[in-house]
């Protein structure tokens, strides 16, 4: 199981953590979008691809944009999704 953390600015009904299956990072994001459709517009473009402008951390390590497609997220990991503009 992978824990996905989102910003409180995105939170629906105060919830900021979710669980998905392990897998490639883009698929983890798609799992979240499928399970929680209200997040789809924040995560995926109209082609169903994760937005490149999001910052993604896996277990506190920033994942460079050019390597996201290949990153495997293991069971027990935490993925934190950070918008490029935070605060407010």
């Amino acid at each position: 199981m992978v824990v996905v953390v989102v910003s409180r600015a995105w939170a629906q009904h105060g919830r900021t953590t979710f669980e998905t299956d392990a897998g490639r990072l883009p698929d983890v994001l798609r799992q979240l979008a499928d399970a929680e459709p209200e997040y789809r517009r924040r995560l995926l473009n109209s082609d169903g691809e994760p937005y490149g402008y999001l910052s993604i951390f896996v277990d506190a390590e920033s994942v460079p944009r050019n390597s996201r497609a290949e990153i495997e997220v293991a069971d027990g990991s935490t993925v934190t999704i950070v918008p490029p503009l935070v605060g407010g």
Partner: protein
Amino acid sequence: MDEMARVPGATFLQGSPSWVLDWLVSEGQSFPREWFVDETPQIQVRLAAFLIDRYPVTVAQFRDFVAATGYLTDAERSGFGVVYGPRFWEERRDASWRCPTGAGSSPGGEDHPVVHISWQDADAYARWAGKRLPTEAEWELAARGVDYRIWPWGNDWNAKFANTAELHAGPLADRDSWWRWWQAECSARGGQPLTMPVGSFGDNASPYGCYDMAGSVYEWVSTPSFLYDDASECDPAMRMTVGHYRGLRGGSWMNFRYQVRCSERMYGDPAGWSNFAVGFRCARDS
């Protein structure tokens, strides 16, 4: 427009006093108290005198920089800029400072603040101009002076003093009302950035004579993201930006009154990201 204000050296308390968080909660705005915890506790800062631009950098000024250097912004190199469309933030092909909403669009005017500026773009311009980006503390001192005030002109909100969403839409109670307004803007005018000529508001001067420090465009500062108190229980996504992002101050034309306060803190990804409401102003040692 190439005019700088001198801010005398000072010791001041950066950040918001706790009563401001109480007030924010009492206002019934969309965010919980925890969202603003990063503004507290106030920290004592001592600054040497410095100079800071009275206005954000304009399209004309940035055009001069590009003409002199051939510089390409991050948005131009990547082939897209980030724009708030009718659905959400989107990567819009060919959107950049020249074409804020994509091919065929143009800036509102040469005297408008330039947008789609990444942190590197802002830093490159500042170096070319013989200046630098202000630190976060310098920006806040320039915006409100030594004595605390919510907005550059004081503690009483006036929607006619700043370019915010409330200037264009009237009072906005929550994010749903903002959303309805922006949907209407997209339908009526294609979702163009609602920038205005710099210095349009003679009443919004800071104590040192700087303008447009509330609203207009988000302004980059040089300071990496940090918390005034490491033990603050702030948003986990916000905490993740510490040391990775850079400060953005002043809010923008997209925001409510609460996001354009002098002590409000935002953070942006400096790794090439920008959007159609992000600009900057420069500073220089005195």
